[in-house]
C-alpha cells in the first residue's frame, strides 16, 4: 500500500516534469531560437541546481536519524550549529522520527525522483550527441558534452551548498 502511494507520487511528479521539460524546450528552442543542444543543456543544468537545493533542504529538515549522505560531506559544516541528526537532537520521540521519515519518502518521491528526475534527461542528450557526430559537428558535440557534465556538477554543488544555508537560517 505504501509502495503504491510512492509509485503514484512518482508518476504524478514524473508527468509534470516531462510536461515542463517539453514546455521549456519549446520555449528555449522554438521561441527564443537557441540551438537544440544549448536548450537541452540549460534544462539539464537548471535541473541539477534544483535537485541539489531540494535534496539538501529535505535532508536537513526531515532526516534526523543520522543516515543522511550529507553527513560525510564538507557541506554539512553549514549545518553544524543547528543540530540536525539524532545524536544532537535526542528530544524527538520515535513517533516523530517515523512521521518525518514518511514525509521525507513522499516528498523526495514526488519532487526529486518524479519531477526533477523527469525534468532532466539523458536520452535526448545522447541522441543529440550521436546526431552531431554523424553530421560532423564534432566541436559542438564536445562543447555540449563537456559543458553539460561540468556545469551540471557545479550546479549540483551550488544547489547543495545553498540548500544547507537555507536550512540553517531559522
Amino acid at each position, binding site marked *: 500500500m505504501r509502495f503504491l502511494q*510512492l*509509485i503514484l507520487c*512518482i*508518476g*504524478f*511528479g*514524473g*508527468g*509534470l*516534469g*516531462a*510536461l515542463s*521539460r*517539453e514546455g521549456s524546450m519549446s520555449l528555449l528552442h522554438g521561441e527564443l531560437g537557441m540551438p537544440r543542444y544549448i536548450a537541452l543543456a540549460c534544462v*539539464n543544468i537548471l*535541473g*541539477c541546481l*534544483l*535537485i*541539489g537545493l531540494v*535534496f539538501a533542504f529535505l535532508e536537513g529538515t526531515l532526516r534526523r536519524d543520522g543516515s543522511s*549522505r550529507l553527513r*560525510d*560531506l*564538507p557541506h554539512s559544516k553549514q549545518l553544524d550549529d543547528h543540530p540536525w541528526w539524532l545524536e544532537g537532537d535526542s528530544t524527538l520521540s520515535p513517533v516523530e522520527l517515523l512521521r518525518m521519515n514518511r514525509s521525507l519518502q513522499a516528498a523526495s*518521491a514526488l519532487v*526529486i*525522483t*518524479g519531477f*526533477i*528526475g*523527469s*525534468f*532532466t*534527461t*539523458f*536520452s*535526448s*542528450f*545522447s*541522441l543529440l*550527441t*550521436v546526431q552531431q*557526430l554523424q553530421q560532423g559537428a564534432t566541436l559542438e558535440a564536445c562543447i555540449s*558534452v563537456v559543458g*553539460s*557534465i561540468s556545469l*551540471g*556538477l557545479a*550546479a*549540483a*554543488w551550488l544547489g*547543495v551548498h545553498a540548500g544547507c544555508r537555507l536550512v540553517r537560517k531559522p
Partner: protein
Amino acid sequence: MLMVMLGGALGAGARFLAQEAGQRWTKLPGWTAILAANILGSLLMGIGYGWLHGLAVLESHEALDAMQRYRDSVSINEGMALLLAGFCGGLTTFSTFSLDNLFLVYEKRGQLACNILGCLLLGVIAAWAGLFIGGQLA
C-alpha cells in the same frame, strides 16, 4: 500533452523500480541503477527515433491520393514521438546523475571516473546502436 505526461509518469515509475530492485537484489552501489536506466533509455530513444524517422521517410514516397491515410499516420507518429520523448526522458535523468557524481567526488574518485565515462560512452554507443536497429526495423 497528455502523451508526454503519460510517458513521463511511466518512465519515472520505471526508473524508481529499477533503483529499488538494484538496492534490494544486488550489492552494487546506488549509482549503477541510474547508469543502467540512462543507457537503456538511450538505446530505446535511438530505436524509437530511428524507427519513426524510417517510417516518415518511407511514407513520404507514397502516392498523394492516400493523403488522408498519410495524415492519420502522421498524427499517430506524432503521438508516438511525444510518448517516446516522455517515456525515455522520464526513464533517463541528468540531475540524479550529477548529484551522484557530486557525492562520488567526495567519497570515491575511481567510481566517479567510471560513472561519468561509462555513462557518456555507453549512452552514446547505445543511442547509435539504437538508431541503426530502428532504421533496420522500419
